[in-house]
């Protein structure tokens, strides 16, 4: 079950060369509910809904894979580094504890 979520992949610096190590941030709008908090009005427990897996794929090769638990903040950010290795595509796949699978990709074009 896929649901549309706002997400963003940011690469710093914007212009990079082949072989350079760049900073990659992945942001996603997600409630990250722990399942232990109560709704203030209805006094009902808010069911757990959190991302449990994030994978960074670059040209078909997995570079980073993360196992995530409840303790990440709402609308989480994942920042790491990546070595540019030719033209291609960076794909981020993230899975939810309820079985929701989503994907976000960004083209990578090194200059020079």
């Amino acid at each position, binding site marked *: 079950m896929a649901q549309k979520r706002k997400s963003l992949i940011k690469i710093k610096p914007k212009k990079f060369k082949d072989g350079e190590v760049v900073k990659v941030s992945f942001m996603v709008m997600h409630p990250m509910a*722990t399942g232990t908090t109560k709704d203030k009005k209805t006094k009902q427990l808010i069911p757990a809904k959190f991302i449990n897996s994030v994978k960074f794929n670059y040209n078909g090769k997995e570079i980073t894979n993360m196992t995530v638990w*409840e*303790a990440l*903040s709402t609308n989480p950010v994942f*920042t790491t*580094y990546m070595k540019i290795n030719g033209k291609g595509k960076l794909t981020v796949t993230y899975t939810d504890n309820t079985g929701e699978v989503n994907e976000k990709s960004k083209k990578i074009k090194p200059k020079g």
Partner: protein
Amino acid sequence: MQRRDFFKKLGVVAAVSAVAPVMSFAGDKPKSKNAMSYATAVHAITGGKTAKKSAKVKLKVPEIAENGAVVPVTVNVESPMTSSDYVKAIHILASKNFNARCIDVNLTPANGKAMFSTRIKLGGTQEVSALVELSNGDFLIATQSVKVTIGGCG
């Protein structure tokens, strides 16, 4: 200050103080199936090996976090990141959260630099640690205590 200005400001203060308790820690009544204590989590990751304290691991967390719901954490590890010597995994742990594990990051030499940064929730004043697994099987650890003024349901 005029009278009407005073009432405007009073309204803002009231709104903020009404919202703040919503984010309070829910206590240990509803238990998550993922609940795991700090010692168990460390043992599960290291498999009984002792983690050495090291200056190579740089953990950056604010000493005083005003809002426990959003605490920025940055882990930087000095490593050449070549195929023979690299950082295999970075684990971020919070000692008093009901589930001590926050995130496990598995890195590869293709990362080029061993760094990871995110934002976590903390249920109260506690210690945050970064447990680093190297490619040769060694474990390094860095710990810092964080004072939380408003808990963040974590």
